[in-house]
């Protein structure tokens, strides 16, 4: 299964599953990241660094730990 850290720069992906505890789940929901949302990966993880996502026109940075808990599929 692919997670956000295996995706290349500029690719569009759909969020399939968010694993991890309730805290993380709720935090992501508050920032407008939900299962089924389509996001663009603006900056992929580099040397264990965070990823930068664009979702509905705004940017969210996610640390590698959290990014690895979000399962996604690439869409064209």
């Amino acid at each position: 299964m692919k997670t956000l850290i295996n995706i290349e720069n500029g690719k569009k992906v759909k969020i399939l599953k968010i694993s991890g505890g309730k805290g993380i789940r709720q935090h992501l929901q508050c920032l407008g990241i939900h299962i089924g949302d389509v996001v663009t990966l603006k900056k992929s993880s580099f040397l264990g660094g965070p990823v930068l996502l664009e979702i509905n026109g705004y940017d969210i940075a996610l640390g590698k730990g959290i990014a690895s808990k979000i399962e996604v599929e690439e869409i064209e």
Partner: protein
Amino acid sequence: MKIAFIGQPNAGKSTIFNGLAGYKTVTANFPGQTVHYTVSNVTVGEETFEIVDLPGIYSLTAIDKAELESRKFILSGKADVVINVIDASTLSRSLELTIQLAELQVPMVICLNMIDEAKRKGLEINLKKLSEVFDVPVIETIANKGIGLSKIFTSAKEAFYKNKIPKIQHFHKDIEEKIEEIEKIIPSKLLPNIPRRYIAIKLLEGDAELFEDLRDYKELILKINEIRDEIKSSHGRHADTVISSERHALTMNIFEEVTKVGEPIKSAREKLDDLLTNRFLGYPLLFSILFGIFFLVFEVGKLLEEPLVHIFDSLIKRLPEYISENTLTFYIIKGLLEGFAGGLGVAIPYLIPFFIGLTILEDVGYLPRMAFLMDTIMHRIGLHGKSVLPFIISYGCNVPGVMATRILESPRDRFITAALSVFIPCAARTTVIFGLVGAFIGGIAAAGLYILNLLVIMTMGAILTRFIPEITPGLIMEIPPLRIPTLKNVFMKTWLRLKDFTVVAWPLLVLSSIILSFLEFLNLDSVLNQIFKPLVSWILGLPEQTGITLIFGILRKELSMIMLFQALDTTNIGQLMTKTQIIVFTIFTIFYLPCIGTLGVLIREIGIKKAMLVTILTITVAVFLSVLSRLILETVF
């Protein structure tokens, strides 16, 4: 009429607040700048409005401490009208909060701020339709340019007098049934002023605070958990996820109904943004920007300092011509002049350029980008990128720096970040570094002290992390768009920060200087110096007159240097202290005990026990480093 501004972080609540109330709170282009609320009275015509600026909150599910403050205020029912400030360019997400606010059933106005930015993103919002959906007034503003602010009070009055209670947005039928089921069984004593629907939904979401309030109703908790499990089995997801998806779906429906999405205007800003967070170029840029600011602060400060200090110096030298020496009046006037000169000649020349630099970085929105770049490095010391923000603010002053730790989610991260923040050389300590090491040894040596300081902080971070290991959730942070700072805001913010110095610290400086002069007159200073001689002379190898200056440094760090000039009776320290002594003195001043102000805020934020722990830590580190540098430097020179 009490009006509360509520909205998601970085939506521009504080900018609107300042626009209405005159400049009262510090704004910045990063999420979570406001960590406590500010109240102000504004009179328009014959009516007086009490306006409240609350910390930004993504959702009524509070995640960090600042959000909890907002939620508490909203739930207290003190607000007559709620103004929901929305960053129009993130409307699709912001409406999720609006839907939750509607559940509180308080008269409301929707304020679509940064409408210009929404247009740049190609969003065209139909105000009339949005107003119909919620049945409340909707207004447009561009707060940083002051556009549309006059409509705020008229629409607030309309909402209040016409009792514009927002329309509830309903979920799917099966969820609504569950909500109703819970509404019926909530004890009437629980939060009597809050609508039952709000409580029911929060309980479905498993809100920890509300469950805590319900701890005496064991059966009720069982029943609610039963309902949550029913939802989980019928939807295949946790109840909180189901509610959040429902809300998301509602939001997207409203968003699609009221907005037309066109092509975004691509601009140079996106390209610049891309460059600033570039994985290779981002770091040299970060380094150059920070180095550039420190270099400018040093150069501009020096330019202003020299003539100013010169004026006062010659004045003090000529003092015996007017008043005879060895009288009390002479000592008091000398103390007064020296304290006054200390503030005007030493602190202010460095503070002004520093504050301007920090303000520009904040308003442009560079700080969250720094957090993004620094995330990997911060992980090495057991923290994550967001901790960079309190650190950077601490370079201005540790007090707001420690307060900014509230944007962190876990108590452990807050403690470690706060503990490390007090080690950061604030503007006051910067004046000591520049004024002593910079002026008498050189700029490179001063820069070296900053690097030493960083290394110490990283080591301390690594050690503290060993003692309090815990997997932190990691970085989750919104990166706001780059913005061009307005001249007015930069000026007002610098002034606000400078005012803190002139009204609080400067008088303290003058007063302490007079006290020291008075002690000198009574020959008491030598008694105090004798008490501290073991530490100051034997361990640190400093002239014994410096003992008293280190005591005064606890009030405010730059006092140490001003007092040093006075205690040694010269502004040319280089003649009386060796280079080693100057460096040891400065290192000790940087690291030992946070000043009184910082200590106060530290106690408030992390509790007295932990604050004492940090204090002991700072003294230990200061003595250790001073002795170490003394030994090394004495062998080198």
